[in-house]
């Protein structure tokens, strides 16, 4: 087990974005989180990665309690995340984007150069090495964002809706890259997506979130057949009690 959330809740004023979320992510797997818009997926990510702390509950990463830690501390422990709205450092080159991750997240001195080259090569970004991040297309921007995370040497990579806005071919290519990161680097991947098909395709296990609560966890084929999941996805909007 690499990550565990224990009864994690988060309220924004009166709105309860997360209610007692229990989740365990095993080392080495690709774990998918799905759910309709507003289900609390991104809030869960923000709480785990330290953007803000939960109202109650505990988050444990590799046996360490990270509930109250700042984002940068969590990164130093080996957990990196991407953002739904693609984030890079537009005024820096692709190489320097990775350098930020390697320098501050990786805390490596001499092997910095090697780490960056390896990561660029691993994600087939070597030809973009000196390009300015602001000049990249959406797909490459997303790859660079992910590469910067990998350059920190993270053991858990969290991807927040990485497929949004990509074409079908790009989606397939991207999922290939995710599999490669998971297989080749042995990095555990936590992925949020609301395109269910793709998520089912790539995940080892899945969790469905609805109105801030977990309604189902399991292997993709089990999850698909769960009556509550079917209701959420097909009967959405009809009866929310």
């Amino acid at each position, binding site marked *: 087990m690499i990550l565990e959330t224990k009864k994690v809740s988060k309220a924004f004023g009166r709105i309860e974005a997360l209610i007692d979320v229990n989740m365990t992510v095993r080392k080495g797997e690709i774990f998918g989180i799905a759910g309709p818009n507003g289900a609390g997926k991104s809030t869960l990510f923000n709480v785990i990665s330290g953007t803000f702390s939960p109202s109650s509950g505990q988050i444990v990463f590799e046996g360490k309690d990270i509930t109250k830690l700042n984002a*940068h501390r969590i990164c*130093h422990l080996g957990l990196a995340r991407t953002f739904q709205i693609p984030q890079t450092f537009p005024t820096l080159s692709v190489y320097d984007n990775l350098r930020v991750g390697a*320098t*501050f*997240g*990786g*805390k490596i001195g001499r092997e910095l150069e090697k780490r960056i080259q390896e990561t660029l090569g691993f994600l087939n970004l070597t030809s973009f090495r000196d390009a300015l991040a602001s000049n990249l297309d959406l797909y490459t921007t997303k790859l660079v964002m992910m590469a910067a995370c990998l350059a920190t040497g993270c053991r858990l990579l969290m991807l927040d809706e990485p497929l949004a806005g990509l074409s079908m071919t790009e989606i397939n290519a991207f999922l290939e890259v995710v599999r490669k990161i998971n297989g080749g680097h042995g990095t555990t991947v936590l992925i949020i997506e609301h395109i269910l098909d793709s998520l089912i395709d790539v995940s080892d296990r899945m969790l469905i979130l609805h109105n801030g609560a977990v309604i189902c966890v399991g292997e993709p084929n089990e999850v698909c057949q769960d009556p509550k999941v079917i209701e959420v996805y097909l009967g959405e909007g009809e009866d929310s009690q």
Partner: protein
Amino acid sequence: MKLTDFNWKKIAIILGLLFIALYPVMHGDTYIMHIFILFFVWALVASNWNLLMGYAGIFSLGNIGYFAIGGYISGILAKSFGWSPWICIFLGGIGSMVSVTLFVGLPALRLSGIYIALLSLIFADTLPTILTQTRSVTGGAMGLHDIPPLFEGITRIHSYYINFVLFLVILTIIYKIIHSSTGLAFVALRDSKDFAKTLGVNEYKEKIKVFAYVSFLTGITGGFYVHYLGDISPTTLAIEPFLLAIAMMEMGGIGRFPGAVLGAVIIVFGNEFLRLAGTLRLALLGALICAIILFFPGGLMQFIDWIDSRIGRLKTSKAT
């Protein structure tokens, strides 16, 4: 030498530094040397300011205050206790660093943008009041006089070279900081704060670091300044030096490395030679600043980029 190898910027810098280094030997007018020393000092104040404002994106307006603290501490220590000015200058830098980091840096962590500007401005603005209230030590509004020079029998030429070396050393340090991991962190934080943090950039640590660097280096510059002039008074903290230093940054190009130095060349020498114009001096200087900002909003550095692109085009047309 082929035309393509020609890097006019490097050559200009080398020629400029050679000229400065050889000036006292070639011509050696004591008045011009004085202006040069003022240029060294103000170029450093503006370059440090640019590090804080242009690179780190922290809108500090109190840098003249950091400068004055360093100067006053060093002057008072040297005068009252008779300690070696060199040690006093160092202590002045430390004093400036501690007080600025404590009273501006730490609160600034909780503030952003314009509020840091207000805080740092207030910090610098309290200094004249503190000075007049502590007249017995600081000399109050009359200022502190007869501050011992760096060593007995110092001449203008000595001061010139000492300040020139200071100029080179501090600019090298600033260049190193910009190209260090700290500099990278600032660009990252400026570009995307959230992403930078999740990649492990510790925002607070980097901000405190830059406050400490800048206030120490500015404080030391203040120390060298007062030991050169022999006196300092609260007029240092008046609006004119403040505006001129801001103008140096603006003219040179905010967030560009040697920009503030170029701005200082124009402001310091312009300010002196325009004395011929009498009361029109500041108006002329202002017009010059307006013209530069109007045509080159990125300051002189943008002007240099423009020349560069022209030369680049010339090269390609020659090549074909």
